[in-house]
């Protein structure tokens, strides 16, 4: 077998039952290695978020296998899946998915309170690494969109995940901010040896990525040149 961090093999996901079914993912195959950042682009409704959900253990595929660090997710029960998400996977969402009541540094501490995490990153240091140490005490609503996204990325990295799943991180940001954020993601991916899958609509940021896949109607095309 391979030791790719993320492997999707012949993964299909069908929503609904009976006559009204939607094939969100259609025999998708994808492998991402440590230190690699892969972009997924494609029209709305193509199945990009579905791919992240399946890769992150939020949804079980209708068929096919998903392996994270060599572990087949199909063999894990709910509790194990939750634990895997907690320890091996980092999620970065589009916007404003910080916990409103917590300040920046506490956002980073939050995932460490969910359960035991081996050798976590030091929240303060990590905050410094994403350039946010001077706003450690600010709450989500006191931060700009770009700043929030930096905190979100740091929060995803605090458990030293093997896999980073990122859904449209720049959707609410201007050009310059978008460049900065994706550059940060690419930098962390390589520095930390994470396998990153990033869904984006923003073609200007693709040059930061190692590969770009286009997704149409649930099918993942082979890498397109950028």
């Amino acid at each position, binding site marked *: 077998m391979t030791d790719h961090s993320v492997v999707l093999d012949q993964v299909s996901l069908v929503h609904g039952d009976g006559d009204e079914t939607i094939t969100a993912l259609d025999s998708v195959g994808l492998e991402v290695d440590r230190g690699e950042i892969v972009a997924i682009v494609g029209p*709305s409704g193509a199945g990009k*978020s579905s791919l*992240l*959900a399946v890769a*992150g253990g*939020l*949804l079980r595929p209708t068929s096919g296998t998903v392996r994270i660090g060599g572990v087949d997710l199909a063999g894990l029960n709910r*509790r194990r899946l*939750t*634990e*895997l*998400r*907690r*320890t091996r*996977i*980092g*999620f970065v*969402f*589009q916007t404003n*998915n910080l*916990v*409103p009541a917590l300040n920046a540094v506490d956002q980073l501490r*939050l*995932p460490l*309170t*969910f*359960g035991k995490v081996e050798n976590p990153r030091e929240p303060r240091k990590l905050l410094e690494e994403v350039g946010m140490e001077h706003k450690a005490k600010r709450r989500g609503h006191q931060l700009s969109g770009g700043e929030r996204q930096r905190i979100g990325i740091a*929060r*995803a990295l605090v*458990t030293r995940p093997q896999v980073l799943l990122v*859904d*449209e991180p720049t*959707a609410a940001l201007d050009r310059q901010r978008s460049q900065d954020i994706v550059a940060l993601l690419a930098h962390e991916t390589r520095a930390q040896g994470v396998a990153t899958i990033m869904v984006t609509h923003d073609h200007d940021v693709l040059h930061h990525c190692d590969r770009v896949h286009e997704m149409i109607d649930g099918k993942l095309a082979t890498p397109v040149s950028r």
Partner: protein
Amino acid sequence: MGSVVALIAILMVLLSGLSVGLVNDGVSGLQRMKATSFAFQEDVGKDAAFSRSVFDREAVGVWAEQDGVEQAAPFGNALVNGKTDRDVDIDLALFGIEPESFLAPEVAQGTALSGAPDEVVISATAAEEGVDVGDVITVEQTGAELRVVGVMGEQHTFGHVDVGYLPLRTWQEIRAGVREGDQVPDRVYEEITAVAVLGADVDLPAGDRAAGTKSLTTEESFGASPGYTAETSTLKLIQGFLYAISALVVGAFFTVLTIQRKQEISVMRALGASTAYLLRDSLIQSLILLVASAAVGVGAGLALGAAVSTTAMPFALEAGPIAVATVSLLVLGMVGAAVAVVRIVRVDPLTALGENR
């Protein structure tokens, strides 16, 4: 919502004070008697036993002989209106007793009943209304004159009226409406309201069969004092509603809070928080909120209650009932919160991704 819980806590404290106050006002005179049970006229209705019961005192002897009875003594009860020689109007619940019996009250001021026919010992609360040792109270109904020789140390009231202890014979004359100079039939001195019984382990039904009476324990006899059952059951009903309302309010609040936090909860789930963690987290938050607002409410309630205590309202703050009320509020609040927080189980972590459109 914190303020709603605080307000409910205030109401709880006030209601509790009112209940205790009303109970005190209604039956403290009975509570402070040493008797463990009272035997009344056999066929008298339970609600009015104290005011209606009249029977022959020979039952006292029968009761004294029952197994387990340490003491049995005649007891007479009547409500009268009076006026002191210093023009203070005073209503009294007259408790007629034999001064040498176990029912004789202890006095904090003045002297105990000595056996002289015109003596009366009054409740501390009557003294607060301006009746003093040395005053002479004229009973309006018969013109009988009673000399206040002693004042008891605590509140002794019965049916919201101050208690006055007096010799049984004098009570019998007042009850029969005997006026000065009247010829008193012997029968008058045979009549009593109840036999007061003292004894830890008495077979009441057996005693009743022997004596031809109807016994109520002291506890049960509270219900036989004027207005007591109606007042306490009304208050209990209000209290019950308050508990139900607080559980609903807290439940509703946490339902709304959980719905508001749905996005946040789905994010935490996606990041690997287990359901157990989220439930614990929410319940602890609820508990902190509840305890803090209940503390504020109880504090405010106590302050308000202290102010009310100084008025004529029957009101008494006691730690026990307030603690019970507070704990019930917290427990029911947590039940409400738990019901609401269970919604967390249904929050789908996918929502965290789904809102990305």
